[in-house]
């Protein structure tokens, strides 16, 4: 009798390992059931009692993919170009032109930003030290520095995203770096997409900027207004001295005007006051100056886009004085006449203080008017600066700007020495909470764009689990029946091995902390069908050998040894495609590749070793397996 002992030990070891790996999954299922059965105080008590175990079970259980749990998957791409833009100094037209070029090219093709960026400089023969580093540094040194800074920026962005997601309290989030500048964020169970997007994308650039004097603000608005009507003083002299450029300039002015009015300039014959006003003061028709003299302008919500585009035009930008910038209010306000309007603020271009000094933020409620606010605390250096700034600007207004939008612009009442400040102007407590998270985690070093977003609702997830389970069960039942019918007891042994097969697949997945997805379940179902193959190869061979005249034992042994080559070769090739699929696929498809590969390995093990051992034991004990 051949010594079956080593093989038996191997099998038992494999089974034991699988059970050990799968135990936390069972535990987790159990705990959840217990918690659901209890209510209120009881469940809290139970939770505290078994806290560590429950956490442990959760960590080690088989994870369900987003397509089975429901949730969101977002791929962020760090805007390294903007990052480089922010790093640069002495930016001139050449620089801006290069940035524009790179942006256009990078939007359509799959090029890495930094090499392209550097190449553009080299093509024009401009040294990098004009804009980066110090004069003495050569291109190679600056390139290395930029490369290093870019990588650090992406890593910092990942940390900040991780920080924000942690505070948002998602269970089992998954955050990974992909390639040079992409971040994959998987958030199971998340329902509010808008919140998540705000959470991930807000750069959280916080700035405190002084408002410009109201008179200056109005004067600039008047200048724009006059420009649009073509009546800008000094315009005629400038035009006369450059007649060659006069035509395009005038055309640009007309374009700007029609952009603002949407091409619906009133006919010259129209003499209503409105029409006359529109013709004479096109800018003020859309931007109503605050009557109280604060220097702000009010713009109807429906007109905001037009004014935004107008203000972006280079001809209009040129009309602005130095250290001057228009910034919009973050939210629109509903006025007494029922119209929603945004505010346009005139602020200094340089910030007095930035968010880097904020060390703590807390969402709260203003005791006076019950509206949501966020209280902020600064570090010692920030507090000193803040005291100086507030002290020097009493009765002036400071705008609190987050991501280039003004949240509020309160008047400085007194010098603030405690390093405290607050942000108001949010609509809901949830918004305040998001702001708190984002301020605490810190500002992203560069903006991130969402280039891919997938979300699965929980109901689809549940349906998918149900379909997955029922198809697996059905496949199992049909296969088992068939094997027994066709190969009799030989088939029953194969079925027995199949069950081990499934145990091993689940065990290995639990061991690797792999994620089970719906295509992954399809992979298991497929494995059930394919696992049969190895058994069929062996059984068919055994039949042949028996027909050839061998004894049962000899036929069994011959069957296994002769079939082995075929089993091995055919399974390896399918395994190879599994590897390729794992490399290529994302998310759910990777889950399929994983179960396919594990399934193949497991089915080879159970078909070749387990069934062989069983047959040998059977024949030793005198039980004759029948191969039909």
């Amino acid at each position, binding site marked *: 009798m051949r010594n079956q002992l080593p093989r038996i030990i191997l099998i038992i070891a494999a089974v034991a390992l699988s059970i050990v790996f799968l135990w936390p999954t069972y535990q987790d299922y159990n705990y959840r059931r217990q918690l659901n059965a209890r209510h209120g105080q009881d469940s809290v008590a139970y939770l505290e009692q078994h806290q560590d175990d429950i956490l442990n079970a959760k960590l080690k259980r088989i994870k369900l993919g987003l397509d089975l749990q429901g949730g969101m998957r977002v791929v962020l791409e760090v805007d390294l170009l903007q990052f480089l833009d922010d790093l640069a100094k002495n930016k001139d037209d050449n620089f801006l032109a290069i940035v524009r070029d790179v942006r256009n090219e990078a939007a359509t093709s*799959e090029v890495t930003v930094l090499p392209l960026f550097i190449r553009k400089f080299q093509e024009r023969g401009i040294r990098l030290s004009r804009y980066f580093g110090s004069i003495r540094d050569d291109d190679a040194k600056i390139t290395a520095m930029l490369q290093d800074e870019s990588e650090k920026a992406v890593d910092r962005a990942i940390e900040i995203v991780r920080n924000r997601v942690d505070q948002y309290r998602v269970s089992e989030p998954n955050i990974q770096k992909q390639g040079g500048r992409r971040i994959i964020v998987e958030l199971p169970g998340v329902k509010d997409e808008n919140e998540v*997007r705000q959470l991930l994308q807000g750069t959280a650039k916080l700035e405190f900027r002084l408002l410009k004097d109201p008179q200056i603000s109005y004067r600039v608005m008047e200048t724009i207004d006059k420009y649009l009507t073509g009546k800008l003083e000094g315009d005629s002299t400038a035009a006369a001295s450059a007649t060659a450029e006069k035509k395009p300039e005038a055309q640009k002015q007309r374009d700007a005007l029609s952009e603002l009015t949407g091409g619906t300039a009133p006919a010259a014959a129209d003499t209503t006051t409105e029409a006359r006003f529109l013709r004479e003061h096109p800018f003020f028709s859309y931007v109503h100056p605050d009557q109280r003299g604060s220097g702000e302008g009010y713009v109807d919500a429906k007109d905001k886009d037009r004014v935004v585009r107008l203000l972006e035009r280079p001809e209009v930008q040129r009309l602005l004085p130095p250290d001057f910038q228009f910034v919009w209010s973050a939210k629109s306000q509903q006025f007494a006449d029922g119209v929603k309007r945004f505010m346009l603020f005139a602020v200094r271009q340089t910030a007095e203080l930035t968010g880097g000094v904020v060390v703590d933020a807390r969402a709260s409620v203003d005791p006076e008017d019950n509206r949501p606010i966020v209280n902020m605390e600064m570090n010692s250096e920030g507090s000193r600066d803040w005291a100086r700034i507030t002290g020097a600007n009493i009765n002036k207004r400071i705008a609190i700007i987050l991501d280039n939008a003004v949240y509020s612009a309160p008047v400085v009442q007194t010098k603030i020495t405690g390093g405290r400040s607050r942000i108001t102007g949010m609509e809901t407590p949830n918004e305040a909470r998001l702001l708190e998270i984002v301020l605490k985690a810190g500002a992203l070093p560069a903006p991130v764009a969402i280039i*891919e977003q997938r979300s699965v609702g929980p109901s689809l997830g549940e349906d998918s689990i149900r379909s997955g389970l029922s198809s697996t069960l059905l496949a199992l039942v049909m296969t088992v029946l068939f094997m027994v019918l066709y190969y009799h007891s030989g088939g029953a042994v194969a079925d027995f091995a199949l069950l081990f097969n499934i145990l091993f697949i689940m065990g290995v997945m639990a061991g690797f902390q792999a994620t089970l997805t719906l295509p992954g379940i399809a992979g298991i179902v*497929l494995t059930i069908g394919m696992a049969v193959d190895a058994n069929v190869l062996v059984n068919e061979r055994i039949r042949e050998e028996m027909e050839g005249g061998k004894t049962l034992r000899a036929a069994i042994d011959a069957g296994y040894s002769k079939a082995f080559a*075929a089993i091995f070769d055919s399974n390896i090739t399918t395994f*190879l495609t599994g590897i390729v699929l794992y490399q290529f696929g994302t998310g759910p498809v990777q889950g399929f590749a994983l179960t396919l590969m594990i399934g193949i390995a497991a089915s080879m093990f159970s078909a070749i070793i387990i069934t062989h051992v069983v047959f040998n034991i059977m024949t030793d004990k005198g039980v004759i397996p029948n191969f039909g």
Partner: protein
Amino acid sequence: MRLFKKTTIDFLVKRRFWYLVSSAMMAVGVVSLFTKGISLGIDFRGGTELVVAFSDRVEVRDVRIALDKIGLGRSEIKSYGSDRNILIRSTEQAEGTTIGDRIKDALQKQFPDKKFDVLKEDKIGPKIGKELRRDALYAIIWSMLAIMGYIAIRFKFTYGLGAVIAIVHDVFTTFGFLSILNGVIPGLNLDITQEVIAAFLTLIGVSVNDTVVIFDRIRENEKIYRSMPLDKVMNKSLNDTLSRTIITSGTIFLVLVILLLFGGEVNRGFAFTLGFGIVTGTYSSIYVASAFVADWNLLRKKKS
């Protein structure tokens, strides 16, 4: 139970005929690919795709009217699984998820008295779409090369070549089949998604599986029957393995039918593609791979 007694079918004698059939099938497939084309899921095209479940039955027509109002009337709209679920796919690109939001708003305005649930929402930027297309192509090419290499090593180079030609045949015919049947069967969604590409790669693996078992038997029989001419050895091997081939392909096919009917909407395209692939895979192992090797051998013999 035994389905097949000892068979002695001469498979290879009719192979000329089957070469014609194979070429015809591939030609039809290719023609369909170039004329009707295939429907790419947004994985590969980029855009926004929503699956919405309404509280009761909704007409695709009405959904299109709603989308027309926001300028998205040319989006693809079809039912998804049941007549209450609608799949909307638009290739328009916009910042973040504005397209998705606009669609949801439009639906709300058009059907104010029906509630709907968003089952699934995907937004793929243009770059990702391009990358996935490229990755899919690489995946198929790499797996073919890997398999050809492995078989060339374990058997002979000719066999590797034969296997690859069989794979190419299977991939093209299946693509053609998907193209022809796209939109023909109601309720069956045959868009090319990542899962479908996974089905193709699996089909490559399983088809080769089949081919390898036959090649293995040929190798074994060659050693035993040294004096037999190759095509007779091949025929014998094909007959020897026939029962196994049919049973294995049969069980996998059965399992795929179960997956098709019960495995959920997501797995449907996968199951259908792979199911068809199994059939062509089995066929090609005999009439493409083995036939090729037999003919190549004959050609070499004639030359020498």
